[in-house]
């Protein structure tokens, strides 16, 4: 079995996370924001898997399942919110929903 070196895995996770962050920041469409969030969560999950494989521990996979569950719950709530926003503002632009500014 070819073992993938830890550094490569973590690097990939880092790149994915960074991509997610950038997407989160630059995208105005709420659907894409949500997707960027998913990418970030999966990047974190990947880091756990890689670390778990490196140390031969199951904890990494346990954590990944937790993250997966949480992401599913988050998407459910997030999509509901997106529908509501679209209903109300007739757009998916996140900046449009800035009524709560101080």
């Amino acid at each position, binding site marked *: 079995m070819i073992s993938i070196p830890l550094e490569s895995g973590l690097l990939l996770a880092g790149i994915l996370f960074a991509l997610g*962050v950038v997407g989160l920041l630059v995208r*105005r469409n709420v659907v894409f924001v949500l997707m960027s969030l998913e990418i970030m969560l999966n990047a974190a999950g990947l880091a756990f898997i890689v670390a778990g494989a490196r140390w031969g521990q199951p904890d990494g996979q346990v954590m990944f399942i937790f993250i997966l569950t949480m992401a599913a719950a988050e998407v459910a709530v997030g999509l509901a919110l997106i529908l509501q926003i679209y209903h109300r503002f007739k757009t998916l632009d996140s*900046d449009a929903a800035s009524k709560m500014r*101080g």
Partner: protein
Amino acid sequence: MLELLWIVPALPFLGFLLLVLFGKHLSRTGVALIGVGSVGISGILTILIAISFITAPPAGHHFAQTLWVWIDVAGFTPAIAFYLDSLSMIFMLVITFVGFLIHLYSSEFMLDDDGYSRFFAYMNLFIGSMLTLVMGNNLLLLYLGWEGVGLCSYLLIGFWYQDPANGYAARKAFVVTRVGDASMAVGLFLLFKHFSTLNIQSILTQAPDLWAIGAPVATAAALLLLGGAVGKSAQLPLQTWLPDAMAGPTPVSALIHAATMVTAGVYLIARMHVVFALSPIAMLIVAIVGALTLLLSGFSAITQVDIKRVLAYSTISQIGYMFLGLGVGAWSAAIFHFMIHAFFKALLFLGAGVIILTHHHEHNMFKMRGIRKQLPVTFWTFLIASGALAAFPLVTAGFYSKDAIIWYAWSSEQGSPLLWVAGFVGAFITAIYTFRMVFITFFGEPRMEATHKPGIRLKIPLVVLGTLSVIAGFLNLPETMGHFTPFSDFLHFALPAVRTFHETLTQEFFFQIYTALASLVGIYLAYFFFIRKFEFIVQFTKTTFGAALQRYWFSGWAFDWFYDLLFVRPYIWIARINKEDVFDLIYDGIAAISRVFNRMFSFTESGRIRAYAMSIVIGAIIILTIAVVL
């Protein structure tokens, strides 16, 4: 007999209570009976006590009576206790006797006034407080009386409160004397700290053991007490309130601002004489204050046109003599002058009151002129009192009392030629301004008619005080003239005799001739300038220098102006800029800073999710950087 001592101050207080509670329902006769009667009975009682005190003196020539313990806190137990010795005896006699005469006088003088019962209530309260002051066995009780008379002085100066000027004069008197009272209070704290008691007699017995002569703390205590005395007795530099205090009714000026209250400072210094004797510097300052005051106010008196203001300045000047006497250690001479002064100055004020009452409440001497034919009794008694004030030789009491002070200013161990010169020049000026007043008011062409004749209740006090202004002087004759001194012998049970050196009878005799000459020449000059050659004075006041001098003296050496500039204006200025309290700035500042932060943070609350995400990312990066770098 002596056990009845407590009734003497209790009666006027009772009169005060009755008049305050039921004064509105009483007729004028009833008010007068209570007001005059309470003081009259207390006067008779005082005389009986005095007779018993002199004929059958108690052990040690003093008598103390404790009524009850006033306060009992941690070893501080001042009692409501009275102390009778020859000093307080003399003050009590003067207060009740002169007080009674002035009450009697007021019962006619104030007859047409709406505040008849209010007037007598205040007057009775005053007599009660003044008696408390001189009889108190501890300094706290003395202080209670001290503040009580200050309150009555305030109430009675502003008695005709409808005129704002009177209210202003009352407030001025109250505030200026308060300056002195604060100093006195600090003095009491100092004494209590060192002696752990405020009992006067135990302080006086302990002080020489605890403090050496000239000890700084003794000087401090003496000077602080002097501060109180200076305020109450209208001496330099707190004399400015007394001329304005003439806004009150004339009997008030006679009782409070001539005979009794303003001499409370003299009493205080005489009472605490041991403390003062321990500090030669303080004694010297007392003498200098007296000498300066008697000169400055004497010059001011020469230029006044209001008859009551002449008398006010003359009162300041005569109390200056008493301070001079105290300062050179001539305790009994000062107290003798206090008594004589109470007689003749009360008489002068009462005489002036009759004139004012019968001349449409006119105060200006130049508008009256030549009224001796209209008011013969007033004229003759006023003349006698003026003679006493001007120390007319041999026949008036004022000569014997003032001469003693001037002589001791020279011959006492603490005396000095300069102090003597001040007293001598003062005597000369006194004669001038006194007889200027007499000549202007009573001589010349009449310009006003008296509206009515004074009644019997106005005349009796004049005649009695006039008699006393002559014969009381024979209670204390100097060594050159018989050396008959029952007054000072009596007083020496409470106060030490004056210590003198370079004293020969011939010298004393010559000094008496100088003083007598000063008085006579002064009277002649007053006659010359104000009757014969009045145009000289008119001419002189028209020159630039003369006009400036007159204005300067008239305003009392511009002390009012100076204090206004030095204290009143800066105070008002500070009050104005500090209208919003300076300490509020701290709390306002805290509020302003939180408001700035609030604005900053509410700006970040933009409602844009991406901005929030951005700030989270930036924050995370910063924290990571810090974690990596450190």
